[in-house]
């Protein structure tokens, strides 16, 4: 049995209080009482049981003793029977009687019980046995024995049988007592078990009764504590987690701090670097500005939106603006009206493909000044990438001079080409027009020799004449050529000329020939004046008038008229005749060198070429209006503003005959 007195005192909360305590004590008392009772009962039962057992055992012992006695008696009987003499027999008989007495006593004790021996009175079962066969036998046996000394042989045999029966009977009694004993023991055991169970039950119930609430409370408490513990553990876990978390964060923060410090260091370095760069930038900007400012061309920088961001001094000078008036304005302010619409488009085109290049390749570009005048320009574009977009740096060059120079070059080129042509003509002339008289010369020298040989002396003189004429012609030709070569340059100072007077003077030189052809000459009375080289102009009019007389008077009533007109652009003169006229396809040719339309022996074909040359040198021109049968009008046009080509260098050695 568990010792239930050592119950643990529950550490109840203060709420449990004294009530619980009292209840508990009460319960404990009850429990103890019950236990005591059961213990007593148990003890009692046990005592009783033991008693019973003891008595049963005593009975068994007694039965056993009886058996022994029986055996003894049997044995003695046998010995008696076998006794040799009477003293033995008497001794044996005495023993036998003792044994019998003992048997009787024992038997009586068995039947009635003997409190001194502790033998209970025989149960019915035992009684049954005694009154059964063995008991009766025993009686017989006694009877027998009484008669024993007489009948020895037969009693032996009978006695052995009776002894055996007694034995068996006693065995049975013993067995019966043993069975009873067993039964009592069993009963006792059962009782003890019952008591045990009862005790246990009582204890259990008591325990439950007492300890159930306790248990509950304990359980509750433990649950609570568990819960608390769990909570605590959860909280602990949480806290641990939080701590870990915080630790992690702290670590993270620490590393972030480190990074930040690194960054800061880097930033500081960068700032320093930037400052250096800034300074360098500033310096380079200063240099840039200095360059831009000092550039000999106008520099204009526009922002990605087309507004002027920067100009230099040359821009101010070229366009006539103060730079304040330009910065911030759209660049179109510098573009002439007629190009303004397209200009933004060109700008966009450039931004689409920004490369350093000339603007407007193939186009003539013009800028417009503040005062409205235009200036031809060439523009180089340079893209500069910046954060806000692409700035365009443009260098603007005033190409007025250059254009003038180009024009000059073109003009000079043309002159050179013309000169070249004339050189060609010279070559041609030498190969032909000089050759021709040479052929004549040599030819007629040969003829003359032939004639001399053949005796035709009278023909010789005509040959010589021909030779002479031919050489004359050669000389004239050379003269004319030389003169022509020098006509291209105006040697004399241009002066304002009274053309009327000049014409009349030329006419008077030709008066003889005019009379010859009976030509009527009329000179416009208010011929405009002109600024020209007097000598050359005289040559021109002499040429035209000579031509007019020679070729323009092959008609019935030849008329020659000299006219003149002046307007804003030009001063024009005209020498008109009513001769046979010139077919249009010859109009250009006749001004060429050595071109002759007519079979004229006099002229060398240089006249009109000279006229053309002279007019060209004056910046003017000459042409003819004519058709077959419709007379001819030779025109001269001088520009209103004189543009006279002056010779740089004179060639005095080549003027023997001017």
């Amino acid at each position, binding site marked *: 049995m568990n010792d239930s007195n050592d119950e643990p005192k529950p550490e109840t909360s203060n709420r449990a209080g004294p009530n619980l305590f009292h209840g508990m004590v009460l319960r404990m008392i009850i429990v103890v009482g019950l236990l005591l009772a059961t213990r007593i009962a148990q003890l009692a039962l046990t005592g009783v049981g033991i008693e019973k057992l003891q008595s049963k055992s005593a009975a068994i012992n007694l039965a056993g003793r009886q058996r022994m006695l029986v055996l003894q008696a049997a044995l003695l009987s046998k010995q008696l029977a076998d006794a040799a003499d009477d003293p033995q027999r008497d001794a044996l008989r005495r023993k036998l009687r003792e044994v019998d007495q003992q048997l009787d006593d024992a038997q009586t004790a068995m039947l009635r019980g003997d409190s001194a021996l502790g033998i209970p009175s025989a149960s019915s079962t035992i009684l049954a046995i005694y009154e059964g066969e063995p008991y009766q036998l025993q009686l017989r046996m006694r009877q027998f024995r009484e008669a024993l000394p007489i009948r020895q042989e037969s009693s032996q045999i009978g006695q052995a049988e009776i002894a055996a029966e007694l034995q068996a009977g006693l065995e049975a009694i013993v067995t019966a007592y043993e069975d009873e004993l067993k039964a009592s023991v069993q009963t006792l055991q059962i009782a003890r078990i019952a008591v045990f169970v009862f005790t246990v039950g009582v204890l259990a119930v008591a325990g439950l009764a007492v300890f159930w609430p306790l248990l509950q409370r304990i359980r509750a408490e433990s649950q609570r504590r568990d819960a608390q513990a769990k909570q605590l553990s959860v909280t602990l876990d949480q806290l641990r987690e939080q701590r870990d978390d915080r630790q992690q964060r702290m670590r993270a923060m620490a590393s972030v701090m480190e990074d930040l410090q690194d960054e800061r260091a880097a930033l500081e370095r960068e700032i320093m670097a930037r400052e250096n760069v800034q300074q360098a930038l500033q310096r380079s900007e200063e240099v840039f500005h200095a360059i831009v400012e000092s550039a000999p061309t106008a520099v204009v920088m526009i922002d990605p939106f087309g507004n002027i961001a920067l100009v230099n001094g040359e821009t101010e000078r070229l366009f006539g603006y103060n730079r304040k008036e330009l910065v911030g304005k759209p660049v179109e302010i510098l573009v002439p009206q007629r190009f303004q619409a397209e200009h933004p488009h060109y700008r966009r085109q450039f931004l689409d493909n920004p490369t350093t290049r000339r603007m407007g390749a193939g186009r003539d570009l013009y800028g417009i000044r503040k005062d409205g005048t235009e200036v031809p320009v060439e523009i180089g574009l340079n893209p500069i990438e910046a954060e806000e977009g692409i700035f365009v740096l443009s260098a603007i060059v005033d190409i007025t001079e250059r254009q003038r120079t180009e024009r000059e070059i073109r003009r000079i080129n043309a002159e050179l080409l013309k000169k070249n042509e004339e050189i060609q003509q010279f070559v041609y002339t030498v190969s032909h027009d000089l050759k021709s008289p040479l052929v*004549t010369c040599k030819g007629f020298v040969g003829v003359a020799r032939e004639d001399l040989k053949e005796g035709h002396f009278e023909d010789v003189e005509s040959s010589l004449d021909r030779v002479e004429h031919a050489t004359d012609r050669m000389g004239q030709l050379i003269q004319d050529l030389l003169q022509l070569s020098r006509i291209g340059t105006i040697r004399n100072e241009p002066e304002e000329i009274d053309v009327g007077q000049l014409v009349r003077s030329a006419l008077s030189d030709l008066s003889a020939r005019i009379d010859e052809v009976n030509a009527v000459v009329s000179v416009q009375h208010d011929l405009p004046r002109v600024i020209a080289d007097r000598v050359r102009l005289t040559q021109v009019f002499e040429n035209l008038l000579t031509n007019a007389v020679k070729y323009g008077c092959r008609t019935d009533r030849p008329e020659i008229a000299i006219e003149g007109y002046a307007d804003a652009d030009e001063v024009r003169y005209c020498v008109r005749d009513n001769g046979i006229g010139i077919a249009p396809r010859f109009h250009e040719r006749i001004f060429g060198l050595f071109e*002759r339309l007519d079979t004229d022996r006099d002229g060398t074909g240089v006249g009109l070429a000279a006229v053309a040359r002279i007019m060209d040198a004056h910046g003017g021109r000459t042409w003819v209006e004519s058709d077959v049968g419709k007379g001819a009008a030779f025109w001269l046009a001088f520009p209103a503003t004189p543009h006279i080509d002056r010779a740089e260098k004179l060639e005095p050695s080549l003027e023997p005959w001017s």
Partner: protein
Amino acid sequence: MATSPHNSRLIRFLLVEDNDDHAMLVERNLKRSTVANSVDRVADGVGALRYLRQEGEFSDSLRPDVVLLDLKLPRLDGHEVLTAIKNDPALRDLPVVVLTTSATEADRTRAYSNHANSYLVKPLDFKLFQQLVQDLSVYWGVWNQPATSCGSDRC
């Protein structure tokens, strides 16, 4: 006129030359040629074409066998005369021999591209000139077979 064993009939030349002296030289030398010939002369291009076409004052002219053409002519340039002759179906097969002082390549090329039959440069030397004229008359008068045989009354 010298008789020649080579040709039986007269070879007719048309000389188109504006320079009287040169014309004189040619005519004189043709006269002394061993080949029987006759020369008619016109002094300018217009006259030449009129002669060939038997126009106006030349309506009685006979068709020449050979045209001797100078290039430098007034009124109508020698080149143009040549072109006119060669473009005219009636005159096309008439041999045109250019006889000129010009030795320039331009003139020569142009003459041939206009189908001149020959291009001769007048020599300075008198003897050579004589030789040229003589050879000319032999070549064209004796050796050269004309395009059209003489059967019409023009010959």
